[in-house]
């Protein structure tokens, strides 16, 4: 995935959230995007997730500009998985039902959807909590359900916006373990927007943002910058 001169303005140009972001995320990478509030991290994530259109520049997925993708909803359904800070589970649905919500866009019969949801919830350690509603789950458990939901359609790219932002440090640690494990086991690309240095510590690469620009790009494990 590649961002080329990515710009995003709001309010008729009065607010400039992104001022030309350039970077490449290679397939299978675990990238953390860090920066203070208002630095454009979440806007960047929305552009990468085809939820918003850039005011300038473009996002390319496997070389193809997202602007040229005819079926963006289909692209999101099949290629992307989203994880949010506030989980955003549907409150009236059980854990297993929440995980099935994205699957309506796939040609799977109800029984297969249920079986896949059960397998995914078991994989995130919630095999015993299938029929619990979000209100009866802890914050960490809700985020696990949300992670299972993000994996529902077998995405190639996982986009997480402050996935540990609403969790205590113990739950946050477990969620990071889980994300790391999923990344390793499934080999999918993982982009995490975060304030939390512990999250960045788990990522291989960290993009630092300030005032709508990527100001540094570091390979955490090797300690060497990739580009700037």
């Amino acid at each position, binding site marked *: 995935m590649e961002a080329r001169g990515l710009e995003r303005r709001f309010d008729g140009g009065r607010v400039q959230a992104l001022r030309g972001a350039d970077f490449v995320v290679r397939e299978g990478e675990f990238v953390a995007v860090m920066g203070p509030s208002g630095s454009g991290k979440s806007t960047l994530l*929305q552009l990468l997730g085809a939820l918003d259109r850039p005011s300038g520049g473009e996002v390319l997925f496997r070389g193809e500009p997202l602007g040229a993708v005819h079926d963006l909803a*289909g692209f999101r*359904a099949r290629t992307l998985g*989203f994880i949010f800070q506030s989980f*955003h589970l*549907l409150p009236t*649905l059980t854990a297993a039902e929440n995980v099935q*919500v994205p699957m309506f*866009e796939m040609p799977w019969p109800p029984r297969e959807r249920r079986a896949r949801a059960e397998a995914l919830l078991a994989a995130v350690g919630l095999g015993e909590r299938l029929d619990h509603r979000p209100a009866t789950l802890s914050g960490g458990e809700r985020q696990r359900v949300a992670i299972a939901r993000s994996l*529902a359609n077998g995405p190639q790219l996982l986009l997480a916006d402050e996935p540990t932002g609403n969790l205590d440090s113990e739950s946050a640690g477990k969620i990071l373990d889980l994300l790391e494990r999923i990344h390793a086991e499934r080999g999918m690309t993982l982009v995490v927007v975060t304030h939390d240095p512990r999250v960045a510590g788990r990522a291989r690469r960290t993009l630092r943002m300030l005032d709508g620009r990527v100001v540094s790009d570091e390979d955490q494990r090797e300690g060497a910058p990739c580009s700037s």
Partner: protein
Amino acid sequence: MLFLTVVLKNLLRRPARSLLTLAGIAIGVAAVVALTSVAWGFEGSWERAYAARGTDLIVTKVTSQSPMPAPFSESKRAELLRMPHVRQVNGLLSDLVSIEESPTVLVFGWEPGGFLWEHLHLVQGRWPADEKEKTAVLGVVAADILKKGVGSTVVVETGEYTVCGIFDSGALVENGAVILTLPQLQQVTENEGKVNFFNLRLDPGTTPAELEDLRAAIRARFPGFSAFTAGEVAQNNSAIRVAKAMSWATSLLALLVGAVGVMNTVLMSVFERTHEIGVLLAIGWRRSRIVRLILYESMVLSLSGGIAGSALGFAAVKLLQWSPILRGKIEGEVSPGLFAVALSVALGLGMLGGLYPAYRGSRLPPGEALRYE
């Protein structure tokens, strides 16, 4: 999980609000059902009465669309009898009069020995012996309402009549009526020599084309008169027309009020779930699925209201039928056709009320919806 599970569980998220909207729709649909049922029942009752009498054609003044047309001279009978295919002609005089405690009772004057009597089934007593006898027969419902039995006296206008029999007919309009012989009613209503309907029986095997020719001939021979078939008389009856118009007007109002109610509820729930719609779009839902979600929610809501409203409407008709004022005068029709109309009205409500919210919900840009708190 089925898609419908999401729809139903969304509606249960705010049970009080859903229930209130459902109640609003149910009341609207109940009004539609009750009025339509009475209107259709009224029409059906007259149609059944004419059909039971074995009347092929009814001749009356063409301007008279009320159930009680102005009386006219019965001298046309002989001419009518001479017309092709006409086998029998029975004059009939009818009027709405107040009898004792009952404000309006339908009173018929029928020719003694005429074919109109043939379809009645005598439950008690006997038929009037001749036209000179001051007797009356009562339909079972009229006897019940007036609390009269064989041997009692009924006062019609200025005349006193002894009840000589109680009969049962297939049609409520007749069961709720008092029947005198034609000369007796003509005399007491000061309409000597007058009737307001001729009931014609035609030769068996008269073809529809021959029937049409006869109708044309009657119109030509008697200017200002027309000949209707049984169904047409009921359709042209002004009371039935008013009842039908009222039921349509109420349906339209209920549809509008209900649609606004549904729209309000669904629109509110869409606004409340702006962020959630953003999440659904983010996880890959197409806009068409958002439209379906919102439309299905509003349709499930209104269809449930429609079913509850139909039950309520049919119950209201039963109550009205047994109320002291309307007993014996209305006969609600409870048919699958009416149930289908009620459900169509309810579904219409759902569609109408859900379309705009669905449009609004589906047009939300996902990024903007996600930023919405």
